[in-house]
């Protein structure tokens, strides 16, 4: 029987990786990812997990080693954060285009400078267009379940893309929560062995990563995009299967009290749970407000989003990242795009807050909703507003 234990969220990631019986882990330590890789190192050292742990000399080499490992047919995992993800960036497009399955836990962290080890979504937004499937966790249970499911998604023959599971640095990684840790037997039932058809093997030589001039490059990129967009249905099916088996369901767009909501707050990540407290309070006051959380960041679930926000007259989007001098926070830009062609589109307001680990309290969310409704009615001078900043 799977049992609920009080454990650090980072350890719940490590436990998921152990339960998935990964073959190769290649990682470089960076705050706030360290507890994940420390725990995995212990599992390998104690013989509880039969894997090769490659202590690489950089994140660039971590992702490179992961490419080699996956191409050889090994189940592969890495974890990183912030600057580490930035250093990986050049390599990230390789497994996406070469269709090399692997799972990466990303402990979202602000980007330098100034140096900040604390959380926001700047690193997440920086890798948006690398072609990875990107899944957002909100709590420790999410992290555990979604990491296990991520291996199945990544290695599914209709998918074959690398998957990032994003979790907020510190706000999630370093907290202790009651989490149901899965049984090995259950995971074995759910997660089949990794079978990679094009593996590097002298018995059947393949060439991987050949170069493409203009006469073929666009065809390759279109094929990649079509495959990524199509992966959404498989992701949904695998999450449904997980829910049917273990009772915890996950969806590309998660909703809270949105059914009749005229004002919908949109969030992503662990702050969503705090936001729900503000929703509860405003509902008590009779206001028709709801909360919508983006779980699947790539491929972006446009249809599911539009469906979930049917009743909205105003959408207030919180971004924990800046697109300097841009049109809005990056999440808000996506939401605006999703509704632009709609006949009855809601007003969509962009707020940026919670940068570099700054907390957002339930009261802040109430104020955010009030300010958003005010802008919806009276307009604003700027494309987006940065909240909770001393001026």
């Amino acid at each position, binding site marked *: 029987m799977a049992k609920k234990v009080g454990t650090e969220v980072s350890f719940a990631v490590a436990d998921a990786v152990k339960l998935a019986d990964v*073959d*190769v882990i*290649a990682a470089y330590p960076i705050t706030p990812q360290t507890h994940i890789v420390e725990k995995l190192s212990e599992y390998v050292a104690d013989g509880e997990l*039969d*894997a*090769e742990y*490659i*202590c*690489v*000399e*950089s994140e*660039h*080499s*971590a992702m*490179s*080693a*992961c*490419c*080699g*490992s*996956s*191409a*050889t*047919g*090994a189940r*592969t995992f890495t974890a990183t954060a912030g600057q580490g993800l930035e250093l990986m960036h*050049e*390599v990230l497009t*390789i497994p996406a285009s*070469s269709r090399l399955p692997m799972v990466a836990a990303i402990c979202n962290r602000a980007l330098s400078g100034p140096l900040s080890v604390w959380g926001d979504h700047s690193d997440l937004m920086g890798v948006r267009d690398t072609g990875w499937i990107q899944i957002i966790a909100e709590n420790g249970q999410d992290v555990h379940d979604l990491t296990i499911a991520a291996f199945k998604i990544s290695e599914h023959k209709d998918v074959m893309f690398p998957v990032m599971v994003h979790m907020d640095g510190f706000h999630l990684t370093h907290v202790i929560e009651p989490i149901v840790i899965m049984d090995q037997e259950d995971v074995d039932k759910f997660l089949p*062995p990794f079978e990679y058809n094009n593996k*590097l*093997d*002298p*018995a*059947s*030589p*393949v*060439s*991987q*990563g*050949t*170069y*493409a*001039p203009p006469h*073929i490059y666009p065809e*390759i990129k279109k094929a990649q995009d079509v495959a990524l967009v199509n992966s959404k249905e498989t992701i949904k099916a695998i999450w449904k299967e997980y829910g049917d088996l273990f009772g915890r369901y996950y969806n590309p767009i998660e909703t809270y009290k949105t059914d009749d909501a005229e004002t919908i707050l949109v969030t992503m990540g662990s702050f969503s749970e705090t936001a729900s407290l503000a929703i509860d309070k405003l509902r008590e006051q009779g206001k028709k407000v709801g909360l919508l959380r983006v779980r699947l960041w790539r491929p972006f679930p446009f249809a599911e989003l539009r469906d979930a926000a049917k009743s909205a007259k105003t959408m207030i989007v919180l971004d924990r990242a800046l697109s300097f001098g841009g049109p809005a926070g990056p999440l808000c830009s996506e939401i605006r795009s999703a509704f632009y062609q709609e006949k009855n589109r809601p007003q969509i307001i962009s707020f940026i807050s919670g940068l570099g680990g700054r907390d957002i309290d339930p009261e802040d969310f109430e104020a955010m909703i009030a300010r958003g409704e005010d802008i919806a009615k009276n307009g604003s001078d700027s494309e987006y507003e940065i909240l909770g900043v001393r001026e």
Partner: protein
Amino acid sequence: MEKYGLYTPRVAPQKEYFAAGHRACVGCGEMLAVRLVCKALGKETIVINSTGCIEIVSSLFPDTSWEVPWMHTLFENSAAVASGVESAIKVMQRKGKYADGKVNVVAMGGDGATLDIGMQALSGAMERGHDFVYVCYDNEAYMNTGIQRSSATPYGAMTTTSPPGKKSIGQQTWKKDMPAIAVAHNIPYVATASPAYPFDLMEKVKKAAATKGPAYLQIFSPCPTGWRSAGEISVKLARLAVETGAFPLYEVENGKYNLTMDFEKLRPITDYMKPQGRYRHLTESDIVLIEKKLHEQVQELRDKSSR
């Protein structure tokens, strides 16, 4: 030479794993070296290739020259990718998920990929002790992008980013001693080789592949396009580089140096430099200085070998 057909099949396998039909320049010394390396490695081999001439001439989608499993990802990371391949084979063989038996995991790249941009990844892979071979094909500049200087470019050589001028001799620094850096990682096998000495080259490749742990090979790779030399003298230039001391052949087994090709008297460096346009601008005193330095380096290797 008249008995060539008689004895060659006995010392070198006829099977090619780097197939003809690739798009390299006429007289490319690098592709000759690649062909010999692949011959020596044989079938049970996986090649991880850095971005560069080798990758570009051999892998235009959907064609490939590779008859062994081959993977290219990026420029600077082949040693790291090879680390992943080697680790994956190790653990999957242990778990019964990959066919048993020795597989040569071989990363290869040019001097830019090795001595410059990929040195960190290579250092990491050597330090970690992966059972792999790294082959650096040294043509002494970034040839694929149009002959820009690297840290392997010899002192005085002309490249497009080390042009000689009123205030410059050309390349202003001496060639980085990468084999010594590899030796400093305490790896079991380091060697230099040249396509002008094909049997010596293949022996060293076989030794490197048989070595348990990391092995580093640096192979001299004449580039007629980049060196402004005639395509038909590439092998001759490779031989002259050894005979003049410009590229000495040696191996270092478990820290022990051994000069594998030595001469009572080195040939004058001008024999090697004259046929190459990249040295055309050098004055007599420049050449004297270069020759002195190269002779000192060979003497140093002799001293180390006799220890």
